[in-house]
């Protein structure tokens, strides 16, 4: 039977002809069968997200040669209208940043794709509620997206992707902003969409642990499809990816470098690629014993601006502890991988939200959604050591009009102190918030 998706010799350029020209996809050919659960894996900039956008008909203008066959038809040749309809009913996309519309309710977000098909309001609402129920978030139907946690928002994103019943679901790094529990829930759900609904699932990820349900893995680097693997069982994936595939992707790397690269992605979820690169560098220094444990922990804690990684004390201590465990041979790297695969590190965004909820726990005043978002920002900046404790108190005290939170002088300094107690790495507090 014909594959549901077939790329034949795809070449794609960004800014073609300009000095900033990038040859983003180089002669990529591949096949995906109907009902397959496959993944594109590789480092930032390897072209995996570009492939995704080509498959969803969003980059047809930039494809300079080759065919994008979906069930035998070349969508790279589609008219604007044909592409518009294909994007509505052919593919459902789930994004890392959720991409919900902040000013409309959760239910309206989910029903939006149906509105584009001209479906009546009543019908949209009925179908929308069915989808919310399936994703276990029906009680939040009339809330605004900002009132939901990251995990819940991602579920809204998934419900929306299912609205027009597309046979193909595309996920662009869907787990990057989710904590361990929610990330696992999303993976479970993707599997359900594949096994129960029979949909073709295509996931893009740079986190090896999220490949566990994929049965076909496309390895990409610098716009080239390096290799296709078809692991038969879950165990195969952990083995295949952890060491071997990193070697394949980086054949000239020393074992220490490979370890540093794969560990850094597992430990620093939700951080920018610059921060991850810097962490990788220092991690390598530690793994090859060029710096000792104390220096390593200090540098993790030091602000990014001053040359460090900019982690908050609690996180720096936790990571330092894990790495010292490897150095003192208390556990092997494989054990660390296994542990992190089962329990991925909490991404920065979730940590900030958890801290915010705890900080507001005893606060008697009213805080609206905008203030909550602002507070998340402030906490994140303090976690990264970009602003000082004093700055935090200042912004908490600043009026809402001036983009502060508008707390009293007393409440501001109390809340700032509370935040500092977490950053100092007090075990009791960290346990209480489950960080």
């Amino acid at each position: 039977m014909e594959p549901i998706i077939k790329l034949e010799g795809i070449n794609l350029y960004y800014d073609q002809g300009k000095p900033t020209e990038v040859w983003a996809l180089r002669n990529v050919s591949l096949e995906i069968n109907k009902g397959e659960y496959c993944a594109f894996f590789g480092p930032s900039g390897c072209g995996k997200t570009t492939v995704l956008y080509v498959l969803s008909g969003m980059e047809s203008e930039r494809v300079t040669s080759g065919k994008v066959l979906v069930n035998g038809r070349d969508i790279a040749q589609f008219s604007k209208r044909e592409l518009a309809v294909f994007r509505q009913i052919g593919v459902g996309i789930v994004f890392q940043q959720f991409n919900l519309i902040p000013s409309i309710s959760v239910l309206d977000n989910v029903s939006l794709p149906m509105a584009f098909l001209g479906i009546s309001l009543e019908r949209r609402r009925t179908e929308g509620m069915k989808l919310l129920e399936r994703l276990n978030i029906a009680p939040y139907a009339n809330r605004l997206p900002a009132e939901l946690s990251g995990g819940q928002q991602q579920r809204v994103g998934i419900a929306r992707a299912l609205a027009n019943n597309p046979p193909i679901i595309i996920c662009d790094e869907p787990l990057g902003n989710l904590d361990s529990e929610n990330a696992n829930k999303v993976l479970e759900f993707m599997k359900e969409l594949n096994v129960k609904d029979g949909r073709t699932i295509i996931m893009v990820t740079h986190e090896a642990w999220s490949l566990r349900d994929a049965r076909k893995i496309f390895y990409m680097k610098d716009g080239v499809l390096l290799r296709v693997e078809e692991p038969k069982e879950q165990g195969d994936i952990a083995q295949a990816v952890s060491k071997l595939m990193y070697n394949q992707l980086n054949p000239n790397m020393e074992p220490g470098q490979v370890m540093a690269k794969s560990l850094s992605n597992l430990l620093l979820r939700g951080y920018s690629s610059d921060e991850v690169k810097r962490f990788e560098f220092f991690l390598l220094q530690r793994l090859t014993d060029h710096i000792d444990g104390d220096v390593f922990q200090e540098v993790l804690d030091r602000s990014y601006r001053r040359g460090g990684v900019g982690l908050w004390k609690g996180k720096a201590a936790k990571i330092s502890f894990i790495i010292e465990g490897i150095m003192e041979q208390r556990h092997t790297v494989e054990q660390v991988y296994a542990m992190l695969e089962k329990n991925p590190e909490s991404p920065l965004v979730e940590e900030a939200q958890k801290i915010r909820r705890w900080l507001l726990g005893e606060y008697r005043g009213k805080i609206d959604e905008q203030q909550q978002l602002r507070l998340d920002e402030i906490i994140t900046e303090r976690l990264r050591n970009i602003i000082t404790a004093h700055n935090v108190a200042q912004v908490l005290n600043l009026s809402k009009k001036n983009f502060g939170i508008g707390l009293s002088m007393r409440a501001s300094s109390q809340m700032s102190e509370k935040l500092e107690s977490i950053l100092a790495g007090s075990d009791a507090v960290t346990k209480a918030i489950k960080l």
Partner: protein
Amino acid sequence: MDKINILLVDDNEVIRIFFKDIFWLHGLEGQFHLEVAPGVDEAWAILRDSTKNINVVFLDLVMPFKKDGKEMTTSEAGMSILRTIKADPNLKHIKVIVFSGYTDKKDIEEAKKNGADMYLAKEEHLPQDLIKIFDSLAKQDSSVYQYSK
């Protein structure tokens, strides 16, 4: 098994693309052959062509047509096709499913009176609903037709 031959008559290009895409995306092209007509005259060219052997028509109602030399755009366009099919001994075996953007009781009653086998409101039919209907057609399940036996 023989393919089921479907004719879609609709003057809206997006509806024609949407309909065709559902067959394409959900792998139904093996069971069905789809013909598409953007207007009344093209519809008749296909209906009268015995080699096409149309089994089911999905029929839009409001389309441009000529009456007594004048151009009009009313539901009479679709209704007259419906009536003519049901009155013609060579064509009356064809199942006609009205697929319209209008949901007035008046239109539904008139369609039923003129012999429509089914009435579908566009605004109530998501891709998944149409797929269910196509499945019934493929299984030759005539209970899918609301109005005829």
